[in-house]
């Protein structure tokens, strides 16, 4: 119980929770009026953004002791997978959107 009440007395946790609440509402606001043409690229773009989990992978990797092979191996995998998510996600989205913009210019 003490752990739970500390959620609100510990300032950094409190700050994180505030960020979460605000981000939830912001996310809803940002997306609420999207033409259906953009659903797929938007989903793909959001997909790339959650690749921010890569930062966690970098931290895991970077603080692993040189002999902690489990952390090194899993962290290395995590960095690769996270990078795939980020880079692949942004490139795929760009390819989808490139077609739209090219069309508009030639029109």
């Amino acid at each position, binding site marked *: 119980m003490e752990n739970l009440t500390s959620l609100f007395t510990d300032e950094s946790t409190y700050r994180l929770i505030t960020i979460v609440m605000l981000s939830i509402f912001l996310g809803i606001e*940002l997306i609420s009026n999207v033409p259906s043409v953009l659903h797929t690229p938007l*989903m793909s773009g959001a997909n790339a953004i959650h690749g921010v*989990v890569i930062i966690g992978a970098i931290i895991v990797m970077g603080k692993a002791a040189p002999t902690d092979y489990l952390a090194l191996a899993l962290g290395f995998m995590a960095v690769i*997978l996270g990078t795939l998510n980020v880079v692949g996600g942004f*490139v795929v989205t760009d390819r989808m959107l490139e077609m739209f913009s090219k*069309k508009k210019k030639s029109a």
Partner: protein
Amino acid sequence: MSQSLLLLSYLIGSITFILGLRMLSKPESARRGNLIAAAGMTVSILATIFLYINPDSHEHLHNHLWIFGGLVIGTILGTYAARKVKMTAMPEMVSLFNGMGGACAMLISVVEFHGDSAAHMIKMLVIVLGAMIGTVSFVGSMIAWGKLNGRIKDRTIPGAQVINFILFAGIAALAVLVIGGYVSVPAYYFYALLLLAAIYGGLFVMPIGGADMPVVISLLNSFTGVAAAFGGFLYNNPVMLTGGILVGSAGTILTMLMCKAMNRSLKNVLIGSFGGQKAAAAGAPKEKISYKEIPLNDAAVLMAYAQKVMIVPGYGLAVAQAQHTCHQLELLLAEKGVEVYYGIHPVAGRMPGHMNVLLAEANVPYEKLLEMEDANDIMSSINVVLILGANDVVNPAAKDNPASPIYGMPILEVERAEHVIVNKRSMNRGYADIENDLFSRPKTSMLFGDAKSVLQDLIAELKLL
């Protein structure tokens, strides 16, 4: 000093994510939005590598060689895959990348679990939830990927709801044991939990039909966002938190919007598409639909001498990869003085917006693509509608049969045009597995065959005229 620089970089990252999402939701700024978010991501990643200080040891991160090695491998593979993939395979690519993100979140949690298996309750809660959601998202995305490229067939599992409930109870019980520290070797329980979560992720996606995959991928996308946000909690990292939560909430809204475009409730999608109605339909006596076929040259003549032709593309066009051939037909008709439009239903194809992307790839001018409302507005002035492998999105039952499972879904009202030519591979039903009595209406004639070869034949006929 380096700490404030790091936080500043994270702030830049968060702002670019917000701006990026904002810009991605408008056609004119979408591409820039994507690039801005990518730039912010790069700043955040580099700042983490060089400026992050481990709060426990007060040291900078080391193992730079490993980190950059992973980044380089991931970048090469990711760029290669994303550049090589065909436009028609985009949906499964997105699903695959989403799965990678989920797996990444899972691995982070596994490492953290081993690093501190006696962590206090809240930290353990964050680790377990991150691992769980990451695993569900990873396995679910992989199944969705397999389904979209046809490697995994739709399968309804008998008693799926009971099994899911048991799994869920098992996951909850294990989570309590691990988080509360009630067991002496928490690792066993932790891995059992991951295993159950993996099975749950598989069963979750398994019964959902191929055409509903976009909705599921969007939902799994927001799951991965939440998993990333748990990582943010774990490392007290604001950019992971904002990025993850933004995608979590925006992804949920996007999922709802997609459902709305299809006039389906999320619950309906998740329970396994039209399951309930399918049984009811099977009970009703099946009538043979009568239909008439139209010879190729007749179809060609009909279109060549029409004033206005509307092409309605669907899944069949995507499968046959016929977008370029379709564009050729359009140009040929235009040469003969026919006005050609495309009527685009928002959910035609495999993903919302799929048809726009495909036709754009074939260089069809943007303004030829009419959105559903605009297409319906001019429908009564159209002489010939050519339907290429679309079915449910033109099914009049959505308008006039309240008993139909798709009743209420907005459709392209093609029956208001003068003639309707339907190209399909066979008389098989569409994705929703319901009869389409458009095919038996007097105005309609059928043109069977693969969209690409039919279009090629039509072009050949048109050239002879």
